[in-house]
């Protein structure tokens, strides 16, 4: 049997196929990991990978392979969630072992103030985000794209086909929801 294409996995996922959702996650994960490894092989002394660059490249790779692939915004929404998984895994392994070779995934925004959350916080934020996704998927996707992948509001607006202001408002709502969730969890 031929391996299903990413495009077909996305559409099956959207028709509610749980199996396809898992397969989609797995193949995107492999894809992103492969790209990261490829960069590493090119530059063995350790390399910084922009999360957004990685996603762009993944999209280019896949759209080159799958001729019918067209919807970049939708692709990014799924891939961003996978990227979060990759980052969390990376953060966990960093917790487990002192950082050595391998790669670091970085944000690309030059003006992103604030300091990066610590690894334990990241896991908790990720869990809260899964809950948010169950309540309001669109909001959760924006957090994946912005916080975990470093896309700007303007870029997200283009991907989602909405105005930048709408993205900002959704981002604001998502933060409120997550903050509430995390605070409640720490109280429980």
């Amino acid at each position: 049997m031929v391996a299903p294409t990413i495009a077909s996995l996305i559409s099956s996922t959207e028709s509610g196929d749980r199996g396809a959702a898992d397969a989609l996650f797995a193949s995107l994960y492999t894809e992103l990991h492969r790209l990261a490894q490829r960069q590493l092989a090119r530059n063995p002394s350790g390399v910084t990978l922009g999360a957004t660059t990685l996603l762009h490249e993944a999209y280019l790779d896949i759209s080159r392979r799958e001729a019918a692939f067209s919807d970049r915004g939708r692709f990014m929404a799924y891939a961003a969630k996978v990227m979060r998984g990759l980052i969390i895994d990376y953060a966990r392994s960093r917790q487990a072992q002192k950082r050595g070779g391998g790669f670091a995934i970085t944000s690309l925004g030059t003006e992103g103030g604030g300091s990066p959350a610590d690894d334990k916080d990241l896991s908790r934020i990720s869990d809260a985000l899964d809950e948010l996704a169950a309540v309001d998927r669109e909001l959760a996707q924006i957090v994946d794209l912005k916080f975990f992948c470093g896309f700007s509001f303007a870029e997200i607006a283009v991907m989602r086909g909405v105005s930048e202001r709408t993205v900002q408002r959704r981002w604001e709502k998502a933060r409120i929801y997550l903050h509430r969730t995390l605070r409640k969890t720490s109280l429980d």
Partner: protein
Amino acid sequence: MSALSRERWQAVSPYLDRAIEMAEEERASWLESLRAREPAVAADLEMLLEERSALDREGFLEGSALPPAPASLAGQTIGAYTLVSLIGQGGMGSVWLAQRSDGRFQGQAAIKLLNASLVGRAGEERFRREGSILARLAHPHIARLVDAGVSPGGQPYLVLEHVEGETIDRYCDGKGLDIRARLRLFLDVLAAVAHAHANLIVHRDIKPSNVLVGADGDVKLLDFGIAKLLEGDGSGEATELTREGGRALTPEYAAPEQIAGGTITTATDVYALGILLYLLLTGRHPAEDARGSTADLVRAIVEVVPRRLSDSVANARTIPLQARERNAGLRATSPEGLRRALKGDLDTIVARTLKKNPQERYSSVTALAEDVRRYLENKPISARPDTLAYRAAKFARRHARGVTAAAVTILLIAGLVGFYTARLAAERDRARFQAQKAEKVAQLLTGLLTGADPYETRGKEPTVRSLLDAGAQRIEKELAGEPDLQAEMLTVIGRVYQRLGSPDKARPLLEEAVALGRRAPEPENERVAQSLNDLGVLLRGKGNYAAAGPMLEEALAMRRKLLGPAHPDVAVTLVELGRVYEDQGLEDRAEPLLREALAIRRKTLGEEDHETATSLNELALLLRQRGSTAEAESLFRRVLAIDRKTRGDDHPDVSAALNNLALVAGDRGDYAAAEALSRQALAVSGKALGERHPRRAMQWNNLASALREQGKYDEAASALDEALGIAVPAFGGDHLLTVALKVNLARLHLARGEPANAEPLLRQALEVYKLKLPEKDWRVGSAESLLGAALTKLGRYDEAEPLLLEAGSALPEGPGPRGREARANRERLAALYESWARSEKAAVYR
């Protein structure tokens, strides 16, 4: 443990949207009225708003999940340099501070490590060659490119003069520079660009972040020519990232010819300099209003003439007072002072740089600099202001066939007023503008629009839309002292925009009208009710039911209070609110509203009134959905009789009534009658509307269903062909109606025993549905169910099962056509399990 249950979150969500958008001072009173109406929602909302102020204090999620500056590359050598520390990360790659390491020279440099994919197919050799040309560019205000190359590891890099400083806009704001000081600084930028142009190098990407100013006030331009270096061999072949909308080209600062793929010349830089100047002088981007999405922005760049500088800082509609004061304060003046300073010569200078046609811009950066200098010296500038006479002359030249500009204008305005009057007359049915009121409004519009300088559209022929835009602006300026009239005009123009299919333009006007009305001494008045009603209709059109519902409920309460319970306007809002519920599948809430509206109309308008018939029809459609087939049928018959009597036998409404009767006949299982009625409907609509009218698509579709149920598959297929032949060009392939036709085509394939043909159609349909419809919409369920059936037939049981189960949860049980889908779905599940040899499960669904 989640923050709020899904239900509570969804209830509070639209209010949270509004609260976030709302100004602080408005919020308290709004919250108070919400508390009175919806105490539970208000409590949740306040809790969330409190959360918001807490997270703002903490800077929650403000950074990024990602470490910004890995130190792993520090100490590496690139060419003759050693990387020291990361300065920044950008779309192109990362920038490092580096130290010269061969000892021959002292000094630091900035090294840009580019993403490999940016170098493009032109390859390393060209990259090096171009780099060495750029490296010859030496000017005190240009950050020098020292070297360009590709490391042995395949890493493309640029070695640049290291510049410390702030971007020019931040520098100016930080120092609070006034207009003249900003212009003097800008002259340094111009000197640098002029020097590069003299060396035949175009920057191509001038924007604030590429213009740094050091603490001593020294200007440096960065990245000269690098956009080209990255672009490819000049044959227009963009590299992947540019083509994919990466950051190599910054749309906000792109000239029209860059967007349109035209020739890039020094005039392209003139344009970008104009945007930079606009930004420095006003604090706003010329396409600020269009920055919502890239598509809007692109359209604005290519088509829309930007607001004049002086208008841009003074526009009270688009810029809140606070922002205007802040922008003026940063320029050491007041909003009015700023407007005055910009009005006149500076307006003219910037307008000339921002011409869409490169040939109409300043012929060179030197010429632009000359005018800026003349302005600073209070001498007359060279650029020609766009005077009325000048623009009129140009306008007339474009209409050389002896038509004078004035005549064109008068014709247009006469046409527009006629258009408004016709609109208003047509809307009277629903909106109930009294006749004399409509006339008053029309008069006022005539006054406004004849008073409006049609050349405000700046060189472009005035269009209905541009006149509307001009009208909307004048309402604000000239009716400032008359909030009542202002609100009324905003409502009228808002509605016209809505009718013209520009809900996004309509919405702020209507919202403003509501806000004005609420500030009136009597905050509950008919006008506010009208605007709320219109806003509700608009939001429903956008699918925002959660926001539309409360608006219409408020409008309804207000109208009942002001007009009494049995007023025709009350009926209008009842119907609209009913539609909102209907769209959400809440038929039981919609039904009493529609019945009440019908009763009001019967009483006030009489039985044989067109609007009474509309109401009857609306109710009948709903009853059909609820499975009250017999009552629906008798109402449809009544509608048909009224329509025939009041409108004649060949009226489109008669055709619609016949079509609806066909549907109920089908519901009863009498497909022969359904077929006959559908054919009658099509005959009437063909005569009344023409063969290709979009409304006929659904009628062909209904005929196809009746034929399919009688086993007349070939006839059904050609009826669907007719339907699609109308719908695809009229609505597009992704329109819900077109998709419904495709679903029906899939149904036909299934009936014919061709499941493989049905599958792709249904997958396409689901893709669109999932984007456009709420998750549990019955149409989603229905398409899933059909897909499940197709897959069952194809023997792909494990794929079919989840679809059918999912469909079961989306399809409501009960009578009516949707209930029929639910029953069909259960049968499909049973069939699945039977073919799958799981008869114990099949029994559950039998």
